[in-house]
């Protein structure tokens, strides 16, 4: 089972392909993890995207491939490996938020 820290939302895969989506959020960034149906149990895996949230009050987001965490869709084949990545990413997002606040606001 995936860790529950910073878990914003658990929902059925909104694409309608079956499976489940976990949405994590730390400040304005986060991760989505989708586990969909596979022909064999052993083939079931997580597809993970780094995302940037668009609204502080809603779960609207855009996929973000510009962070140092990932420039593409990531795949994890066990909960354990994904949980390790989640822990690291939460720390990264905290630091990223601090850094972004130090930047001058665009006029």
């Amino acid at each position, binding site marked *: *089972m*995936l860790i529950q820290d910073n878990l914003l*939302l658990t929902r059925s895969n*909104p694409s*309608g*392909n*079956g499976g*489940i989506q976990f949405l994590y959020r730390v400040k304005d960034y986060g991760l989505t993890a989708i*586990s969909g*149906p596979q022909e064999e149990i052993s083939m079931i895996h997580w597809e993970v995207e780094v995302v940037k949230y668009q609204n502080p009050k809603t779960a609207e987001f855009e996929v973000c491939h510009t962070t140092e965490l990932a420039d593409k869709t990531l795949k994890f084949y066990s909960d354990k490996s994904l949980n390790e990545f989640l822990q690291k990413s939460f720390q990264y997002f905290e630091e990223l938020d601090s850094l972004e606040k130090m930047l001058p606001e665009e006029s």
Partner: protein
Amino acid sequence: MANVKGSSVCRTAVDEGKPADWVPGGEKQTVVDPMKMFHELPREMQFITGSEAARESMRRANIDIAIAYPITPQSESMQQAGYLYDEGYIKEYYRAEEEIGTFSAISGASRAGVRALTATSGPGLMRGMEAVSSWPGARTPIIMLNMCRVINTPLAIQPDNIEMSFLLNTGILLLHAENQQDFYDYPLAAIMASEQVDVTLPAVVSVDGFFCTHARGPVRITPEEYKLPPRDGWRSAVPAMDNENPPARISRDAPIQKSNFISYHMHASWQQEVFAAVERSAKYFDKYLGGLVEVINPDAEDFIIASGCAVSQAREAVRQEGEQGRIVGLVKVKTIRPFPTTSILNAVKNAKRILIPEFNQAGWLHKEVCSVLYGRCNAVIKDGPRVFGGMTMPTEMILEWLEEFRKETK
């Protein structure tokens, strides 16, 4: 060969290739009151597929015999049932020659008074429909797991629940699981409801194949050391066959089998009783499942009524509408037979618009809802979105239909 220690069946440790002191898993479980199992026992969260959820349900169901013929996407669940047989949680299990044989054999087992389980998918159900449609009249409380898939041409093995429409008028109890959790809970509830004296009917728990059976989801399960009470074959609407004193009486009542005037009356009254028993099962499902429906936002003017996987997509649509400040209600229909007419009427009494998304071409849920709400509700009822043949139903599709519906019906 010595009988297995403590076993009530004829399996021996030597037969099974087990150590001589092997005890079947089922013999190590403790029988628990069903209401305690459903509502009081502690639950552990597991992240498992629908097929694995079915396995854990079967493990706790005290099943005497399972018979099935493999078909996608059911095969995985019955493979899991094979593991349970090996571990001694299911007492007897075999693969029949095909579905007519499967459903005939399971009927015989149930008539003999034991708890019998089978499972199938789409075309397999269609192949065995002759036998299946005879189950209710024979008053056989069989439990069938039904992993829905396409049945019509062009051939596909994708999710589509049109096959459920073929079960609506058989006299079978019919539940529609939304997710892996339901596919764990519903079979246990269905077994207990179906075996009540004033019910004694077969029960089918349908689930949308692949989306649930072959995907993982969170499932809260009870400790495996507890199981349901065994079936008492003599505590039913009709007596079980006495297989120890042959010839067993195959027919329930000989005059029914004769083409004379009396048989027509008997058939009619027999069938009326079957469908009355379906209605009587409602009180059991109500307490086992905590209601025949689940209602979200009961005061809404816009409602979605759905069953199965369509509920999950509708839940997310309701959530996203809420983010935009619009309240949309949702009625999740848990039991298709008995159909929760009163619960639905109460839930949508203030509704102006009702949308019914479905994963089938026929729109059977829409027809069911229309038939019970006609003349009793002022809402406009719209059939859609409707996807089939394995098509997906993204949340956006429901949101677009809702937006369009509001424009059409002010």
